[in-house]
């Protein structure tokens, strides 16, 4: 749809498509369908050679003389080591572990995350809640109080940001701390493996399940939407 708007206004476009069924209907002027999972539009992270092949195939469409054109990237390029969409919490059984001190666990993860920042050159997806990782013990306590059914809030929440949206950002940042921390422990780990570890084995995963349950029990659609975005 966006491609059509830009093209109609005088900008030639070429698009990368993940869902062929949708692209067939929408008909952007030029699209390259790729056989990759959601989140993997250019193929594989840290694989410039494959990314260049995808780019070249998409840019080559600009030389076509007529459209709409929908071309398939060769299917045998599929990485094959990741599912089409990541596993969800509901499909992962939490391990029967003794209760853990999640704030303590988070502090340990922060050490791994600092290693991640060293290797990534400072690149991180952390930062939606606006709270630095050094203060995540406070985020964990806030989420625990919320999950326990108390009237929890944080002074760091901007006045205009509704509570469920703030909870979602805190949950997203907590996940990022653990996911990127795990990447520091095990470089090159795939999303499926990390999701299974997070939802199955960590105290933070168990905490976010409880946060989700309280949000989902509400009749307020904004609370339910936040629940759907945290775990399902």
């Amino acid at each position, binding site marked *: 749809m966006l491609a059509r*708007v830009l093209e109609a206004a005088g900008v030639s*476009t070429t698009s990368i498509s993940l869902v062929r069924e949708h692209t067939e209907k929408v008909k952007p002027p030029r699209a390259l369908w790729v056989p990759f999972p959601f989140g993997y539009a250019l193929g594989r992270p840290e694989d410039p050679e494959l990314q260049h092949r995808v780019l070249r195939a998409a840019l080559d469409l600009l030389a076509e003389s007529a459209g709409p054109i929908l071309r398939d990237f060769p299917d045998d390029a599929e990485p094959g080591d990741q599912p*089409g969409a990541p596993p969800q919490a509901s499909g992962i059984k939490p391990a029967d572990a003794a209760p853990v001190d999640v704030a303590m666990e988070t502090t340990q993860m922060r050490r791994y995350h600092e290693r991640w920042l060293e290797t990534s050159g400072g690149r991180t997806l952390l930062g939606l809640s606006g709270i630095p990782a050094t203060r995540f013990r406070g985020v964990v306590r806030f989420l625990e109080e919320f999950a326990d059914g108390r009237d929890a809030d944080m002074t760091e929440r901007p006045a205009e940001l509704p509570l469920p949206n703030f909870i979602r950002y805190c949950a997203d940042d907590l996940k990022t701390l653990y996911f990127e921390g795990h990447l520091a422990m095990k470089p090159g780990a795939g999303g499926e493996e990390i999701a299974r570890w997070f939802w199955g084995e960590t105290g933070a995963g168990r905490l976010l399940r409880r946060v989700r349950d309280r949000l989902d029990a509400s009749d307020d659609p904004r609370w339910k939407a936040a629940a759907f975005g945290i775990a399902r």
Partner: protein
Amino acid sequence: MPRLDRLPQISRNNLLTFPAQVNDTAPFRHPTKPLAACRLAIVTTAGVHVRGDRLFTPGDQTYRVIPSGTPTADILQSHTSIGFDRVAIMRDINISFPIDRLRELVARGELGGLGPSHYSFMGAQREVARIESQTGPEVARRLVADGVDAALITPT
């Protein structure tokens, strides 16, 4: 993929009921220059933006401007749907926003150049009327003003 028959039921249903537009034809504007002379910009629906810029919210139909020289460490993604694997973009921003790869193409002389700005929208949009009538055309006008010949549109 994601081939629908290989997706979990919940993702498949979500996609099958997605209100995709149905069109018969497409606008088509042939680029006036070969790729090696084209100025390109990325327009992404990955919900990425400069750190410190306003976060996207679900269903947000506005856009963000990402100056071409922005270091990748200064790019954040506030599209956090659990329907896609964020580990890929944690490891490599180029998986959705291939800025380094495009810079390499320019250095090799295969691409003419990059526009001064790239543009980003939120992904997983079900309601797109405002993008179609207002924010999309606005980005198109900015691309033209930027001297951009072609846009590469990337999802997440």
